[in-house]
């Protein structure tokens, strides 16, 4: 993005100052639920604060009680509730943080999941991204800390990344509010169905596992025709995730 002089901002199609209203903690009567996921130390809370106008404390201490932070904003007459999930490296393990994040994306069925990643550590961060894309097909990648990446001489081909992942990618430097208007526009496009995602599915899996997942996910699809993540549920069943087993038994997915 070109850096525009401040006075020209208002002319930019992304600015839309009248359309945006930061609503802070007022999360009543929302139209869409947006989940905010990402690794620790990617500036997730900075993005959360930039979107909601809140000033959530950004530090964290491992082992303290895990809480979900919530906030809201309004954009073009629609109200969005934003849920800040705990920062995790993965969704596959048994830790409390990962359970909260995993369960919210799966059972909370957010309308859009924004995944904040550190542009400087993209490869490591993609681990979480690829897992989330198995659960939901409505996601936006927020490529944060672009200012640091520029300083580190890292160049990222945004279009190729978006194509490979099958979801929109928005470069940003949340600390300087760069990329936030574009992020909001993209969230609204995905929420309203203007942008349809075709998320990447994990490919490099050994044959026997792939076979098992295929068999299971076909059976699951037959019982629950409307769910987008039969493959993920198959993964979790193979892992022996008791919460998923209970959810299947009680029919939460219907």
């Amino acid at each position, binding site marked *: 993005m070109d850096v525009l002089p401040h006075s020209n901002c208002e002319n930019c199609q992304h600015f839309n100052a009248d359309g945006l209203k930061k609503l802070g903690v007022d999360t009543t009567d929302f139209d869409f639920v947006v989940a905010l996921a990402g690794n620790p130390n990617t500036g997730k809370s900075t993005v959360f604060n930039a979107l909601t106008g809140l000033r959530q404390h950004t530090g964290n201490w491992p082992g303290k009680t895990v809480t979900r932070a919530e906030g809201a904003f309004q954009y073009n007459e629609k109200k969005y509730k934003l849920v800040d999930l705990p920062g995790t*490296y993965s969704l596959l393990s*048994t830790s409390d943080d990962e359970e909260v994040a995993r369960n919210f994306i799966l059972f909370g069925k957010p309308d859009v999941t924004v995944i904040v990643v550190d542009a400087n550590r993209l490869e490591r961060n993609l*681990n979480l991204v690829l897992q989330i894309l198995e659960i939901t097909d409505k996601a936006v990648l927020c490529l944060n800390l672009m200012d640091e990446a520029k300083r*580190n001489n890292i160049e990222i*081909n945004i279009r190729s990344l978006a194509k490979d*992942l099958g979801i929109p990618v928005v470069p940003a430097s949340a600390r300087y509010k760069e990329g936030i208007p574009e992020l909001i526009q993209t969230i609204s496009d995905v929420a309203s169905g203007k942008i349809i995602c075709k998320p990447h599915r994990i490919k*490099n899996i050994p044959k026997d596992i792939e076979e098992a997942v295929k068999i299971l996910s076909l059976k699951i699809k037959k019982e629950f025709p409307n769910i987008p993540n039969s493959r993920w549920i198959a993964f979790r069943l193979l892992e022996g995730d008791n919460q998923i087993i209970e959810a299947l038994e009680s029919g939460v997915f219907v």
Partner: protein
Amino acid sequence: MDKRNIQNIIALANELRWKIGDDFHDNLAEGIYADAAEIVEDAIIDKNRDRKERLDNKIDRIVTSRVWGFPIMFSILALVLWITIKGANYPSAFLADILLGDVRPMLKSFAASLNFPWWLSGFLIDGVYLAVAWVIAVMLPPMAIFFPLFTLLEDFGYLPRVAFNLDYLFKKSGAHGKQALTMSMGFGCNAAGVVATRIIDSPRERLIAIITNNFSLCNGRWPTQILLATIFIGAVVPASLSSIVSLGAVFGIAVLGIFFMFFVSWTLSKTLLKGEVSTFNLELPPYRPPDFWRTIYTSIIDRTLIVLWRAIVFAAPAGAVIWLISNLYIGDQSIAAWMIHYLDGFGFLIGLNGVILLAYIVAIPANEIVIPTILMLTVLVTGMHIGEGAGVMFELDSVNDTASVLKAGGWTLLTAINVMLFSLLHNPCSTTIYTIYKETKSMKWTVLASILPIIMGFVVTFVVAQLWRIFVN
């Protein structure tokens, strides 16, 4: 939706899980990483990727290598402990000079000027004050050195590499890889190690880490080990080798502690705390120069002072008890003498004696006061004229004087070896016990964590004593 079909799916999943085997989780994780690598290959142009990663990777290749990983780890641990023990000597001597040499006589004469009866000034000054002063002088300097050093290693980024190196062993024993960090913290102070287990999410693995933290030889026990090794073990080899051999013996005890930690972790995970090892992602962060002064400040405030305060709270009543049992008489003997008399038989059975057992009973609040208590009680029962009277703990300036007091108390090489073993394997100090209770909120686990090591101590010292008596003399 048909309930039966759902049950079929779940049954099928269970069946497939058996077929795929244990590696499912690791295979899936590797698959995801492979996908990520492919995507990044297409999308990123990192102009100086090679140069930037080279240094971090180079360091990692050495400190996490199969050949060098463990020797480097042990050397760094040895260096940190050496700096702590050596460096603490001077401020400890300085504090002891002030608190014991200057303040105590002043308090004594102040009490005398107010016409305190002897028992009141004895109880307050020789009992309560002395124990508190002792704990501060002996405990504060090593902790104020160890914890900042530890935090510096943490901030530099070395500790995650330690966890990485040890992960395999912990996984094998059914424990969490992050227990490597809480174990290392235990070498400074077990109470701090128990608090540090908060970084472990899974309750099962956290309990294992809490219960086994006591097997890390803490700061309060290192001086005891070194003193006894110098007096008794260094003495059986030629003088030129004595310091190396005695240091080796102390390090051997610490390594034995690590062995017991793995052994008990493994036993617990197979019995009382059965369950799966939870997987976790451990990020090896880039190496960073630590923020020196902030690190020093926070580690002293967060760790040192809190632990010290708890120790003082427990040491005060212990001082009172030590003075009382030495000065209250039943018939013609003090309570201490009676207790030593009764404990002697059991003490002999496990290669110790009544004095040592009584010292470990009354010195529960802090391992630091075990040796002063042993010296005082030995003088009390042998009737020697050293020290400052019944119930007044003391330490001697020279190692030779200490040796002669202990030998007059009937100590042999076996006694020393067994005290070293018992110092490793006995109940945690009361500060740690209280911390375990606060962290677990469970009487059951607190009791288990307290009595398990002492039972092991009795067994080990008993076996050593019997073997010694059969084979050595």
